[in-house]
C-alpha cells in the first residue's frame, strides 16, 4: 500500500485542517450542449455534459461511473453535476458534484473572468469541488458522514475529466 497522500494547514491559533486522498473519478464525454444567455445576459450559459462512463479508483473506493445516469448541468460561474457510481461490490452511490471553475489564458497565464464566453482557442481550466455522496447503509456509509473536497482537470482527445477527492479529516 502506498503512503497516504495528505495535505494540512494550521491557523494562527493552531487549529489544523487535514485532507487525505480518498479516490478519483474519470468521466468520459461525447457531447457538450450549451444554452447561451441562459439567465441574465450575454455572458451566461447553462450547459449539459453527460458521461458515457468512467472509472472510480483510489484507496477508499473502486468501481465505475454508470453511463448516462446523470450529467453536469454547468453554468457560468461553476458546475453542478449529478452522477451515479457503482462500487465494485455492486453498491450504487449518488454523487452531487458542486464546484467552481477558473479559466486561464494559456498564452499569457492571465485569469479570465468566470463569465467569459468560450474562446475558440484552448484555455486552461482548473476546477475545485465540494461534493457530497449518498451511499447505502453498509461499508460505504462513512461517505454520508464525511466532508470532501476535490480537484478537477479537463482533458481533450478523448474528452474527459478527472476528479480527485480528498476527505476533510
Amino acid at each position, binding site marked *: 500500500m502506498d503512503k497516504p497522500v495528505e495535505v494540512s494547514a494550521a*491557523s494562527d491559533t493552531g487549529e489544523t485542517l487535514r485532507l487525505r486522498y480518498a479516490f478519483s473519478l474519470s468521466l468520459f464525454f461525447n457531447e457538450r450542449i450549451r444554452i447561451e444567455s441562459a439567465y441574465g445576459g450575454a455572458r451566461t450559459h447553462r450547459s449539459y455534459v453527460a458521461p458515457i462512463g*468512467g472509472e472510480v479508483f483510489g484507496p477508499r473506493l473502486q468501481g465505475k461511473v454508470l453511463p448516462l445516469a446523470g450529467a453536469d448541468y454547468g453554468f457560468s460561474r461553476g458546475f453542478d453535476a449529478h452522477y451515479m457510481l457503482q462500487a465494485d461490490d455492486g453498491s450504487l452511490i449518488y454523487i452531487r458534484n458542486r464546484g467552481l471553475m477558473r479559466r486561464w489564458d494559456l498564452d499569457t497565464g492571465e485569469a479570465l473572468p468566470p463569465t467569459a464566453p468560450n474562446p475558440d482557442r484552448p484555455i486552461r481550466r482548473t476546477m475545485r469541488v465540494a461534493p457530497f455522496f449518498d451511499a447505502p447503509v453498509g461499508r460505504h456509509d462513512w461517505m454520508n458522514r464525511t466532508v470532501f473536497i476535490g480537484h478537477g482537470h479537463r482533458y481533450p482527445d478523448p474528452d474527459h475529466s478527472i476528479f480527485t477527492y480528498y476527505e476533510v479529516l
Partner: protein
Amino acid sequence: MTEFTVPETPTKKVGEVKLEFAFRIDAQVETQHNTATSRGDRLFQRIIGGTISGPMLNGTLHPRSGGEFGLGRTDGAIELNTHFLARTEHGEMLYISHSGIRRDTDGYFRFTAYFDAEGEGPHAWLNDTLIAGTGRIEPDASKISFDYFLVG
C-alpha cells in the same frame, strides 16, 4: 439502447491541492432550538454577531443576519446549513453559506463555504475560490469559531 465504448483512463495521477489558512470567524450565537420534523431535527441557532480576522479577510458579522439551520439526521450526522452576512473592513457586504457535517459522536465539524462578494470589489476572489473549514463550539454554547482554509 446505445452502447458506448468507454476508453481506458489515460492517467491516474492524483490531482494535487494546496491548503492555506485564510481567516477565522468568531460568532456569538443564541440557544439552539430543535424542530422535530419527519426528516429529522431541524436546528436553528441564530448568529447574533461576531468578528472576522485573519490574513485574507477582516470584518464583522452583520448582526442577527442568519444562523445555523442544520438537519439532525437519523444516522447521527448533522447536515450543516449555515447562512449569514458579513461586512468587510472596506464596508462591503458578503453573503456566506456553509454546508457540511457535524458528528456529535466524535466532535467532527467540517464544512465547505460559499461566498457572494461584489464582482468588481476587492473580495471578488471569494466568488470563485473553494474554501473548507473547521468549527468549534464553546462548552457553554454561546460562541462558535470557524477557521477557513483556502483550497488552492
